[in-house]
């Protein structure tokens, strides 16, 4: 919370950096293309909060089927088995593989949940221009980016198994609907964290009325 006291932000100084080549322009207007690479420059990512919310809501919706529907269907001589993420965790835990259970639980259940809740927190605080624990929020965002790439673990496991275990009649593993939902959750949370502009965390009510800018700023870019 005590982070940026006395530090002038680029926005306050009227500087704009190109998100692509990193060139900093002075007195550039928002939405102007970078003279070097042509990328449009914005003081803050346009509609960042809005996009983040959209992705977050979609991810939240998909999070339910991801956890409720079976991710892996094991068909073997002993019958077919439908495993959801949590039933797999329970299975490993009950059968004594605590480490494995913990890994799956953390990677496939806690991490997406953490990402979702963290992003929601960040988005809410950014929207309210709160200056509450701004430094921690920045670190939190950084952490999200790091762990985000690990959350596809389950998808990899299932797709690998589905490809490898295909012994006709004896054992067959196929992916369930849940894994698609799970993949969607991962992708959507990544999109959400991508579309979230971490700089918003530093904008507080006391600082520049970035909000006003963002609201009124002409937005010509569609691609992003």
């Amino acid at each position, binding site marked *: 919370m005590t982070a940026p006291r006395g530090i002038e932000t680029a926005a306050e100084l009227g500087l704009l950096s190109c998100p692509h080549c990193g060139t900093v322009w002075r007195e550039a207007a928002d939405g102007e293309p970078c*003279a070097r690479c042509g990328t449009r420059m914005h003081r803050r990512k346009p509609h960042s909060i809005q996009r983040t919310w959209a992705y977050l809501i*979609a991810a939240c*919706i998909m999070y339910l089927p991801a956890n409720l529907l079976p991710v892996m269907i094991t068909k073997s001589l002993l019958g077919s088995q439908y495993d959801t993420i949590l039933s797999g965790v329970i299975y490993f835990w009950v059968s004594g593989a605590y480490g494995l259970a913990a890994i799956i639980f953390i990677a496939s259940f806690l991490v997406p949940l953490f990402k979702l809740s963290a992003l929601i927190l960040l988005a809410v605080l950014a929207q309210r221009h709160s200056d509450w624990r701004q430094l921690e929020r920045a670190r939190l965002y950084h952490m999200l980016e790091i762990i985000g790439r690990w959350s596809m673990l389950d998808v990899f496991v299932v797709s690998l198994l589905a490809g490898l275990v295909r012994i006709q009649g004896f054992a067959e593993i196929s992916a369930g609907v849940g894994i698609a939902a799970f993949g969607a959750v991962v992708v959507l949370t990544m999109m959400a964290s991508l579309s979230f502009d971490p700089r918003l965390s530093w904008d507080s009510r006391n600082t520049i009325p970035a909000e006003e800018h963002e609201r009124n700023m002409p937005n010509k870019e569609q691609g992003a």
Partner: protein
Amino acid sequence: MTEQDKTPPLAEPVVVRRRNWLPSLIWFIPIVAALVGIALVARILMERGPEVVLTFKTAEGLEAGKTAVKYKDVQIGTVQTIRLASDRSHVRVQVQLTKEAKSFTAEDTRFWVVRPRLDTSGISGLGTLLSGAYIGADAGSSSETVSEFTGLEAPPIVTRDASGKQFLLRARDVGSLGIGSPVYFRRIKVGQLAAYELDADGRGVTLRVFVNAPYDKFVGANTRFWHASGLDVELNASGVKLRTQSLATIVLGGIAFQAPDDAMGPTAQENTIFALAQDETTAMKQPDGPSQTLLLYFNQSLRGLSPGAVVDFRGVEIGEVKSIGVEFDRLANQFRMPVLIQVYPDRLRRDIGDGPGESRYTQLDRLKFLVDKGLRAQLRTGNLLTGQIYVALDFFPRAAPVKVDITQNPIELPTVPSGLEEIQAQLGDIARKLNKVPFDEIGRDLRKTLGTLNKTLVGAEQLAASLKNDVSPEMTAAMKDVRKTLNNADKTLADDSPLQQDMRQTLQEVTRAANSLRILTDYLERHPESLLRGKPEDKKQ
């Protein structure tokens, strides 16, 4: 580093228009996600069928969330939860049926657990050894639906989709049959025993057999069913015959059916009641018709006679002994042995070959007539070794005439003592007569007689002695004389005796004389005149 100083107002109007709808495009993503989610939920909800609760004695092999409910090996539901009933007497299994399994909530639907099972019909459910138990279902046809079912402990033998017919068999006991025991027709397995239950009065059992289509059409009104269990060994003049339906029936038992002479009659309706005979011979016998109970009184020991013993008529079994007892006859002041027998007059009639005129007489009239003809009951020894006896009905024309009281129930049939009994009685009579003989007097007389005889004999002896002393020397002398005479005679007659030679000479002379005589006669014949005139030569000369 040079920036074009664009004036914001210039760019603004262009952008404002777009700004209204472009960012909202992003909201399609959650909308799509929501749609997908709703679609998934909807699909799951759509696939969900009714939820039912099954109660079983044990949840052995069942697993919540895993165990499937199958019909024709198609999964129609999954076990959701397994709970113990509040009184701990059974388990309650909650099952989520699929949508197409809606009809399985009919009131008469049956559920059972399919486990590996070894029973009389073989091994079943072997597949579940690996895959684990599942719940089998047999859809009912009732229009009433319920949500709670009592599960069967054993799979039903006959499911509703099986085509065929069910028949009821009445038997004295189940024998070695079990649920699933095969039913054979000409040694082909055509069905099985579906169920059996004790009759309400406990006097027999009713078996429910199911005959599969198309064999059910071979069950006719005349069809007979019999126990095909075990071995049927028959020993007769042509040797030993061993009969069995199949190897399995030796161990497991079975039922066979066939119509006598293959005249099965009209095809039997479902649930027709048949009798189950003990063996094929019994089954193929013509029906016995009504039975007649008769009462016999014997005045002899009934040792060796037991209820169930044969009543026969000249070797043909016509009934059996129902009960034996003993009672005191006040009038005659003696014990007598009542024996109740049950005879089947039809068996007798068939053997007699009664014609169509049978309706003229009632059963009782006929019996009376037969008794008048001398029909009596008698106890006879059936087996000398074991002393088993049986009741024989036969005609004894010389038996004392007896009046039959046909108003009595049961009718009393007169009896005659058995052959052995008769001999015994006669022997007794003889002994009694012998007893009456005055052996003492006879003995005394005899002794007297013997004394006299002795004297007589002594006299005879003396006589003989005197004979010996006086007569025999004379006799010897006489004999010697006789021999001398004979010797003389012998000498006289010998070849070389003078008498013989004289005789021979004499005879030769006689022969010669005879020859001369013949010549003379011949001459005379030719010359008869010579008698008068003499020889002619003499004349000539």
